[in-house]
């Protein structure tokens, strides 16, 4: 039984609904390109084996009672005006954010365990 909740969502509407159901919680979200049945993606970095292992390794540091979203952005990403870009201001994938704060790690930054740990442990 872990000290945080893990939620898998697909697309903006699902993400946004799941977030609104968890008001007041410390929410972290990893945005990734979609994976197919074989585990491949148009964003190979997003699904690279070591990034998932890295994230799993750092989740131990997540604050008690927090929520970790694994969100696949879906087909809508191809539209330059999609909700992720417009509302969440995502500039690319993969991106790791702490919802409701300016804390975020973009692309290569997500591959640095010390930066991920810093975000999870920062006040």
């Amino acid at each position, binding site marked *: 039984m872990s000290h945080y909740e893990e939620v898998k969502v697909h697309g903006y509407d699902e993400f946004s609904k799941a977030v609104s159901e968890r008001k007041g919680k410390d929410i972290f979200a990893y945005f990734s390109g979609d994976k197919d049945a074989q585990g491949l993606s148009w964003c190979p970095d997003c699904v690279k084996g070591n990034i998932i292992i890295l994230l799993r390794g750092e989740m131990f540091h997540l604050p008690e009672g927090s929520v970790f979203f694994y969100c696949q952005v879906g087909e809508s990403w191809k539209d330059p005006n999609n909700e992720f870009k417009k509302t969440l201001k995502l500039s690319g994938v993969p991106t790791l954010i702490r919802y409701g*704060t*300016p*804390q*975020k*790690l973009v692309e290569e*930054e997500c591959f*640095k365990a*010390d*930066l991920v740990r*810093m975000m999870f442990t*920062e006040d």
Partner: protein
Amino acid sequence: MAALCRVRHRWKRTNCIKLLTRNLTGTFDYDLVVIGGGSGGLACSKEAAQLGQKVAVLDYVEPSVKGTKWGIGGTCVNVGCIPKKLMHQAALLGTALKDAQKYGWQIPGPISHNWSTMAEAVQNHVRSLNWGHRVQLQDKEVKYLNIKGSLVDEHTVKGLTRTGKEIPGAVEHGITSDDIFWLKESPGKTLVVGASYVALECAGFLTGIGLDTTVMVRSIPLRGFDQQMAGLVTDYMEAYGTKFSWRSVPKSVDKLASGALQVTWTDKQTGKDQRDTFDSVLWAVGRAPETKTLSLEKVGVKLNEESGKILVAADESTSVPNIYAFGDIGEGRPELTPTAIKAGKLLARRLAGQTNELMNYDNVATTVFTPLEYGCVGLSEEEAESRHGKDSIEVYHAFYKPLEFTVAERDASQCYIKVVCKRGGDQRILGLHFTGPNAGEVTQGFAMGFQCGATLTHLMETVGIHPTCAEELTKVNVSKRSGLDATVTGC
């Protein structure tokens, strides 16, 4: 502020006080320790790390009396330049909205301002800067410690967990610029005590967003700046709704049952006491160096007794060989972000043996972001007179009107340019002063010319860009000595 030294340390936990003690092998644990994670400290530590040094930066924010705290980045990022310029912009936009109607925009209903919306947006931006610095430090492998540093000896730094707070005067009922940018709710009717640029800039944007604001001035506004220009700045503010209480000294601040603050002050001209109530009192009477807990005297670092700032040489060194000080903390240094950053970077390079270049503190341009902005580089008229003698200088000036003010029917009486020159020959420019919109943008380019030793001839040989306010600088030709009308006429 940043005082730095090569240190050796080892972490040791004793009764919750972390002690950085000597390493018995005699090696240093860090090549460089920077105390203060502000403009200077961050620039220096990142530069040094990039040059291969092992660096640690200590940054700690002692909460204000009101309890305001903030993240890494120092005064500029958290309670200075950044939030100031953003709130100044908020106020300018209010004016622009009023002007817009004259330009044909249909704006239904009266325009009002919501403090909380502005404050949240500004505070979020500041927090994103705090985060950006944290990521950069981590990335460049600079060790960041959120503790208050104190010197044990010239090579050892320890962390303090408890520090004494000093609460001068009536501060328990007031706020400072440390608090104003972090308020969640509007400060309401505000009294700003002080006449420095901090006081005037804050009073300026508070007025601009629609708050009843009064500035209480003991003697002169913008001490250290050209006084004619300072007068134009305050004249504009008065014309635009900021109230000024001149030659006044606050006597007491009492909290009324309603929660409002009743301020009693003495009018030095009449000798009589006056009284008024305000929702907030903002003390802007100077920023003191946070050096009490550093144990500087113990280690032998000499200070200026009066200011409490650290005495420094041209290479930022102090009286202790391996300890340097730069940024606001250096005695006699400009309290500006760009000079702190540049000095920090050059110091890091000198310590790494990459250069011998010293920081050039001359010819530094600056801008005061009051409602009518004031940009300048070089000497004030008074300073030029005192250094060269009134007969050896020629002052050229012009009152101009920004084109954008015409349709907006705005008063441009304080939009003014002054170029102070050495008399004779090509008339080297000693000082350049500009009040008007976007003064910072206008002044920056001319500052480069100034750095290159520009003369009035150079200025007159420069063709202006039309239509702009900046071009008026290239057209200046009426001297104060001639007594002729300095108002710019037509195109």
